[in-house]
C-alpha cells in the first residue's frame, strides 16, 4: 500500500479541483494537514499491515516498483513534519483564498515528488520525480510575482536545467553500458565492468546532484531562491525539497549504486568540507536573516556529505540523522524568520534588537534551533555532528574531522551573532510596538522546538535500535 504515498495526493488534487470544487477551497488545508500527519503516524508505526499489504485494490491498476527501508522512512517522516508545518504557516500567511488554494495544490504536487524520490528504486524514475519537485519549486519561488522572485526563480530553473542535463547525460551513458536503470541492475553492472566511461558517467550524474543539493561551488542559486521566495516556500525548500531532491538522492545513488571507491570518498570529502567551510564563512558576513540561513544550509549540507564521504556505516548513519535534524531545525529557523519579518517588517539583522522581549516564543525556539545547528549538547544537532566527526576520525580522515569540528565553531559564531543582533539586548524604539506572531506561526515553532529537544534527549536511547541500523542498511 506504499503507493498511496504518491497516489493519495494526486487523488486529492482531482477531488478538490474537479469533484468537490465548492468545498475544495475550504477542505484543501485540512486534507493536506491530514495527509502530512498520517504520513508521520504511518512511519512511527512500522508494524502496521500498511507496509506489507500488497492486496490493495489500486495495485491492480498501478503496478509501481517501489521500495521501503529505514532511510526511506526517515525521509517520509521528515517530509511529513515539514509539509505539516508548511500547510499551517501557509494558512496563516496567505490571506487571499484563491491564491492559497493554488498554493495548496502545488504543495500536494511537491508531496508526490518528494515521496516519489524517497520511494523509487530506479534511476530514471528518480530523475523524473526530482523534476517534479524542481518544476513545482520554480513555480512556488515565483509565486509572489515580483522582480526578486522572478530573478530567483529564473536562476533556480537555469541551474536546475543544467543539473538535469548533467544527470540525463550521465544516466544515458550508464544506460548505454548497463542496459537498465534499476538501482540493483546498474550497481551489479558497474561492479562487473568498471571502466573510464562509467567513471565519466558517474561524475556527470554526481555533478547534477551537487547542483540540486546546493553544494559549493554549485550553490549560487540557493541564497537567492531561499531569500526571495515567500516564507512558506523558504521553509519548504530549506526543510525538505533540497534535502530530498539533492542530498537524499545523492546519498541513495552513492550507497546503493556507485559505491565507496577511494576516489569517490575523496570527491565527497572535498566537496563536503568546501561547502561546510564556505557556507559558514559566507553566513558570518550576512545581515539579511534569510540569506544567513541559506548560507547556513549550504554549510550544513556540507556536513552531511562529509559524513557520507567517510564511507563507513557510522558516517552514513550520522549523515542520515543530520539530514533529519537539519530538516527540523532549519524549518524552525525559517518559520522564526517569517515571524520576525511579518511582525517587525524587516529582514535586516542590523535593524533589529531585543525582539525576544516582544516575541518570547519566537526568541526561545530560535535559540534552541541555533544551538542545535551549532551542535551543542544535548540537542539533536550535537549527536549527528558527533557521529560524523567520529566516523571521519575512525575512517582515517583526521584532517576532515578537524575541519568538521572547526566549522562547528564557525556555525556557533554566526548563530550567536544572529541571536545577539535579532533577539538580545534592548528593544529598539522602532520595534516597541512589535507583538508575538499569531498562532499560525507560533504553534509550528513550538512543535518544531519541542522536536529539536526531544530528538536530542531520545537519541542516546534509540541509537542502537533505530539510528545505527540506518548505516547498516545503506552500507549493506
Amino acid at each position, binding site marked *: 500500500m506504499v503507493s498511496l504515498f504518491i497516489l493519495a495526493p494526486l487523488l486529492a488534487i482531482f477531488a478538490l479541483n474537479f469533484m468537490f470544487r465548492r468545498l475544495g477551497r475550504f477542505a484543501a488545508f485540512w486534507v493536506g494537514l491530514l495527509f502530512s500527519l498520517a504520513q508521520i503516524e504511518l512511519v512511527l508505526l512500522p508494524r502496521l499491515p500498511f507496509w506489507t499489504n500488497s492486496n490493495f485494490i489500486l495495485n491492480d491498476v498501478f503496478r509501481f516498483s517501489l521500495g521501503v527501508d529505514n532511510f526511506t522512512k526517515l525521509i517520509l517522516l521528515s517530509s511529513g513534519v515539514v509539509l505539516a508545518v508548511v500547510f499551517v504557516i501557509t494558512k496563516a500567511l496567505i490571506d487571499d483564498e484563491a491564491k492559497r488554494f493554488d498554493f495548496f*495544490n502545488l504543495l500536494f504536487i511537491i508531496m508526490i515528488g518528494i515521496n516519489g524520490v524517497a520511494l523509487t528504486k530506479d534511476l530514471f*524514475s528518480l530523475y523524473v520525480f526530482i523534476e517534479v519537485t524542481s518544476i513545482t519549486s520554480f513555480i512556488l519561488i515565483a*509565486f509572489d*510575482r515580483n522582480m526578486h522572485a522572478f530573478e530567483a526563480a529564473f536562476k533556480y530553473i537555469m541551474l536546475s536545467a543544467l543539473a538535469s542535463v548533467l544527470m540525463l547525460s550521465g544516466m544515458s551513458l550508464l544506460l548505454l553500458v548497463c542496459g537498465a536503470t534499476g538501482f540493483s541492475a546498474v550497481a551489479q553492472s558497474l561492479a562487473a565492468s568498471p*571502466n573510464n566511461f562509467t567513471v565519466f558517467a558517474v561524475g556527470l550524474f554526481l555533478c547534477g546532484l551537487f547542483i540540486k543539493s546546493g553544494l559549493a561551488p554549485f550553490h549560487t542559486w540557493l541564497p537567492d531562491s531561499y531569500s526571495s521566495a515567500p516564507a512558506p516556500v523558504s521553509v519548504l525548500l530549506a526543510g525538505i525539497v533540497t534535502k530530498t531532491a539533492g542530498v537524499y538522492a545523492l546519498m541513495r545513488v552513492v550507497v546503493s549504486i556507485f559505491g565507496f571507491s577511494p576516489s569517490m570518498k575523496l570527491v565527497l570529502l572535498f566537496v563536503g568540507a568546501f561547502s561546510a567551510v564556505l557556507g559558514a564563512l559566507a553566513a558570518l558576513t550576512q545581515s539579511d536573516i534569510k540569506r544567513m540561513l541559506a548560507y547556513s544550509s549550504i554549510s550544513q549540507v556540507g556536513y552531511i556529505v562529509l559524513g557520507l564521504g567517510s564511507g563507513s556505516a557510522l558516517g552514513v548513519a550520522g549523515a542520515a540523522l543530520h539530514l533529519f535534524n537539519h530538516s527540523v531545525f532549519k524549518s524552525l529557523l525559517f518559520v522564526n524568520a517569517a515571524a520576525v519579518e511579518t511582525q517587525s517588517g524587516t529582514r535586516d539583522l542590523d535593524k533589529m534588537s531585543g525582539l525576544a522581549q516582544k516575541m518570547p516564543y519566537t526568541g526561545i525556539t530560535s535559540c534552541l534551533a541555533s544551538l542545535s545547528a551549532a551542535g551543542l549538547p544535548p540537542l539533536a544537532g550535537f549527536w549527528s555532528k558527533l557521529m560524523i566527526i567520529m566516523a571521519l576520525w575512525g575512517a582515517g580522515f583526521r584532517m576532515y574531522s578537524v575541519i568538521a569540528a572547526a566549522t562547528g565553531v564557525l556555525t556557533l559564531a554566526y548563530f550567536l551573532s544572529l541571536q545577539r543582533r535579532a533577539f538580545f539586548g534592548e528593544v529598539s524604539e522602532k520595534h516597541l510596538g512589535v507583538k508575538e506572531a499569531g498562532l499560525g506561526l507560533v504553534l509550528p515553532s513550538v512543535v518544531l522546538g519541542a522536536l529539536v529537544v526531544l530528538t536530542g534527549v531520545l537519541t542516546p536511547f534509540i541509537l542502537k535500535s533505530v539510528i545505527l541500523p540506518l548505516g547498516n542498511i545503506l552500507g549493506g
Partner: protein
Amino acid sequence: MQLNIFILICLLAASVWTVMTRSLLRSAIGLALVSAILTILMFNLNSPIAGVFELSVCAGLISVLFISTISLMEALTMKEVIDRMKERLRRFWLLPFIVISAGIMLSLFSLKFNLSLPLPEEQMDVRFVLWHARQLDVFAQVVILLAGVFGVVVLFAERKKEG
C-alpha cells in the same frame, strides 16, 4: 543515414539560433523547436519512448513555463539588448575556440573504453513499456504536466486579472 544527417544539421541550426537570438521569448521558442527536432531524430532512430518524453517535457512543459515567465517580465529596449550582447561577446568570445580546441585535442587521444554494450530490446512493445515497464515514469509525467497547468494558472492567469 542521410536523413539523420539532415535532421542533425537542422538541430544545430535551431540550437545556434536559440543561443544567438536577441529576444528571450524567441530563445524559449527556439528551445521548443530544438526539442521538437530532437524528438523527430529519436523517432527516426527507433527510440519512441525517449521521443515522447522529450516532446512532452522539453518541447511542451518547459517551454510553457519559460514563455509564461518571460511574458510577465518587462522587455529590454533594443539598445540595452545590444549593449548586453556586446558585453557578453567581450567576455565570452574565447569560449567557442576553447570548446572546439578541446574537442580536437580529445579526438587526438585514441580513448578506448572497452565497452560491452547490451543489445537493444527491439521486441518490446511500446505499449508494454509505457503501461507496465515504465508506468511509474508515466505517472510522474502526468504529475509534471499537472504542475505545468498550475504554473500557468499561478503565473499567467493572475497577471491577466491584474491587467
